């Protein structure tokens, strides 16, 4: 793609509503509807930096599996954050924001990934890195692969009118994803259900994506941006925010992470559920491949920047009024029950079961 695209005026849209217009060559931005700004761009001066930030926060990272192959398959030569976003229209399976040419009649209905076909070729490359038989894409790239976070090779795939995310992982990681769903269920917190499948010769976890036009995800990364920080801490505004929005489920998430010793609850791995434009509470939990990795409760827990054990102490003391509403006794009863134990041992070892029961006993 040549640099002509820099002369074109683009706009950030929420569905069919223009949020702002921008010109890359002139580095200008014209605000049209500030009310519709993504949360991560609020609380900031209106400047071209908003465009850069939106795009940088949105695109895949270079350390993602098969990143180069994905970019090559999409025919993207200028790999600046803004260009990558423009090439794929910033379409995602996360929210309803996208980028369109200002003077072109392009509608959300024609382009959104939920209701239109996206490229299976690019999905296939994103999962396998196999470029065989792949034609280089033209300037119409329909894929959500360029706007997802994480380091593992993965892809979106449509099956039976559902969109699923397929992620290539080790068997132990997949089984962590599988069993954590059941532990979350026992705790009464919504969590994506993962399955263990063999796809294109790879062992993969598969889960249905829960976003749709009505339901969007605001990742914690964006909440942090709103508060102009990228540090997660129990003393931070972001932590108070989650505690204000949905204290019980936020506490349940931390209890779950303590019990399964989830070492990767990073800022892209939890967030806020938005339904028809309204923030409803904690988004159903997802991404549990880093549970049961043999770490200690004295290890660091990202959301609080405390150890797992100290996080539990924090919840029991500072947030006691909410903590006590969680039915810990019922949770422990389920985990200790024969039915659950049998299921657990299909996924994990007896030692891991004992360790989990010990931690559950500390709740």
């Amino acid at each position, binding site marked *: 793609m040549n640099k002509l695209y820099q002369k074109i005026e683009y706009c950030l849209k929420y569905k069919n509503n223009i949020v702002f217009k921008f010109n890359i060559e002139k580095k200008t931005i014209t605000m049209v509807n500030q009310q519709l700004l993504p*949360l991560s761009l609020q609380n900031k001066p209106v400047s071209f930096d908003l465009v850069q930030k939106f795009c940088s926060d949105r695109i895949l990272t270079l350390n993602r599996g098969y990143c180069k192959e994905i970019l090559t398959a999409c025919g993207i030569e200028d790999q600046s954050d803004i260009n990558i976003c423009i090439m794929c229209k910033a379409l995602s399976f996360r929210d309803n924001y996208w980028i369109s040419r200002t003077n072109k009649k392009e509608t959300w209905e024609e382009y959104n990934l939920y209701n239109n*076909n996206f490229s*299976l*070729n690019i999905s*296939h490359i994103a999962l*396998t890195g*196999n470029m*065989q*038989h792949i034609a280089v894409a033209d300037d119409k790239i329909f894929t959500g692969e360029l706007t997802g976070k994480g380091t593992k090779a993965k892809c979106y795939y449509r*099956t039976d009118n559902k969109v699923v995310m397929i992620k290539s992982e080790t*068997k132990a990681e*997949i089984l962590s994803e*599988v069993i954590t769903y*059941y532990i*979350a*269920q*026992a*705790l*009464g*917190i*919504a*969590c994506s*259900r*993962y*399955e*263990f*499948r*063999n*796809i*294109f*010769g790879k*062992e993969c976890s598969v889960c249905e994506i*829960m976003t749709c036009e009505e*339901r969007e995800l605001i990742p914690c990364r964006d909440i942090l941006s709103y508060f102009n920080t990228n540090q997660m801490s129990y003393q931070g505004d972001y932590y*108070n*925010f989650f505690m*204000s*929005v*949905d204290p*019980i*489920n936020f506490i349940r998430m931390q209890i779950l992470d303590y019990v399964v010793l989830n070492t990767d609850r990073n800022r892209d791995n939890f967030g806020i*559920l*938005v*339904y028809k*434009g*309204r*923030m*409803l*509470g904690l988004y*159903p939990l997802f991404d549990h491949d880093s549970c049961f990795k043999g770490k200690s409760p004295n290890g660091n827990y990202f959301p609080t920047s405390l150890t797992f054990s100290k996080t539990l102490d924090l919840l029991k003391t500072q947030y006691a009024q909410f903590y006590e509403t969680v*039915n810990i006794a*019922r*949770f422990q009863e*389920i985990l200790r029950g024969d*039915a*659950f134990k049998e*299921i657990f041992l*299909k*996924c994990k070892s007896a030692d891991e079961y004992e360790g989990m029961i010990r931690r559950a006993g500390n709740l």
Partner: protein
Amino acid sequence: MILHGMGMKVSEEERNDVIERMFGKRFDGSVDFDDFDESEMIIASKREEAKEEILRYMVCRIKEEYGLSDDGEALLKWDEYKLKYNLCAVGGSNEQVVPEDRVLSEI
């Protein structure tokens, strides 16, 4: 905190209603393990399952290739597609069309 300005705050009940529509059930600690045993999630690497995935994938590719909307029509075009991309020399059933080992390693 400006929760009201940001679209908050809603009730626990309201959130749970949405979650129930997402998952088709409530997450209230009353666990039902039946789906675990009925599911194939633990029996990994099942070759039949892999073949089915591959078949679905190939049908999708053929539909894209020829601009078709129907799975049956795509299957009728399978041989043509094979020849076009020199996918396999053997004919016969779909199972033979794309030898599994080749599919697993190449697709």
